[in-house]
């Protein structure tokens, strides 16, 4: 429970009392993360939506087995990720991640020129293309950690591996990405 927001603890407590709105609020708080995680795994928006929806239903039904002393988000993400993996196995594909057309991170204080923005956008696209070219385990662990901003514990739950595996897999994946990007 340490480090968990008081609000989440309260929602879990209310949900354990049978308050359906509290459980719904809990799920909604992590809806975007769950959907994007499902998208990373399935590579398909429709499949991701189905996976997230089915994952929420399973979480809803399994909430009695959720231990209140544990953080809610990793538990929910694990269920959604499992659902997404099942769907990926059946659909057998993943689509490439894409960078927004107008994107382009530019460092420095000065106002960026259109050329700077275009170059930065190209760099972003190249990086994401390199990420997408990695083997699935490497791609997923990097996407979870750096694109979705999941913690090691949350990534471990989502990928169904131990936190130590996340650490070593991340290090290897970064090396693979470096080789592919640079």
């Amino acid at each position: 429970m340490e480090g968990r927001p008081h609000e989440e603890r309260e929602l879990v407590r209310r949900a354990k009392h049978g308050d359906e709105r509290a459980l719904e609020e809990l799920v909604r708080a992590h809806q975007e993360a769950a959907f994007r995680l499902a998208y990373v795994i399935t590579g398909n928006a429709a499949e991701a939506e189905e996976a997230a929806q089915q994952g929420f239903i399973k979480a809803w039904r399994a909430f009695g087995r959720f231990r209140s002393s544990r953080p809610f988000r990793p538990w929910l993400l694990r269920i959604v990720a499992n659902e997404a993996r099942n769907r990926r196995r059946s659909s057998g594909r993943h689509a490439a991640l894409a960078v927004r057309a107008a994107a382009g991170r530019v460092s420095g204080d000065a106002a960026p020129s259109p050329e700077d923005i275009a170059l930065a956008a190209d760099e972003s696209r190249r990086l994401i293309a390199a990420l997408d070219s990695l083997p699935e385990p490497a791609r997923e662990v990097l996407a979870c950690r750096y694109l979705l901003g999941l913690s090691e514990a949350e990534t471990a739950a989502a990928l169904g591996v131990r936190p130590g595996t996340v650490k070593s897999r991340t290090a290897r994946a970064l090396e693979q990405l470096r080789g592919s990007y640079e």
Partner: protein
Amino acid sequence: MSELERLLVETAPEIDWPVTPPRLVLPAAEPQRWRRAAIVVALAAPLAIAVAFAVPGARSAILRAFHLEGATVVRVGVLPPAEERPLAALIGYPVSAAQAQQLLGVPVVLPPLEKRPRFYAESGVVSALLDLNEPVLLSELQTGGGDEILQKFAGESTGISHVRVGRAPGLWISGAKHVYLAPSVPSRLAGNVLLWVNDGIVYRLEGRSLTEADALRLAGQITGT
């Protein structure tokens, strides 16, 4: 953080994620197994306690587990802490008869009363406080198939006897108070309790000074003698 990691983090906001569906809904209208499981625990615990007391040799055991309907009761020499509170405290939020029926899968059945009581639901347990000579708490829940294991605790000085409500098996728990562990609410000390199971529903009647005869009479009015 390495330069590559920093680049990844800075690129994250630029990913063209598909729009998160605005309303990924929860199945509010579907049966909820977690609630049923919680119910089984809530009402099976006293039943398991009763079994624990009925098993020869159990009284001499300091720790012993008994399993029933998905619940586990650990027999202890000293009861765990539990609070005294009114029968009607923490029995849940008011629900309509239709909502109560949805939870149970069958209509809530009551003994003949001048005025129908309000129904309350707590973790799937449907309760009503019957306005009799003394308040009597009636709770009903699905047996649920015992799909969850939970632990409860029982002391040694509560009287337990097997009873029948019509053909339905039951247990009469009386004498020294026992610990009632409802899901997700503080444990409380329970008074005299009649438990019985009929057609997939567990029924529970509790009153501070409820007698066995009155409990059996009420039970017969609820599910038939």
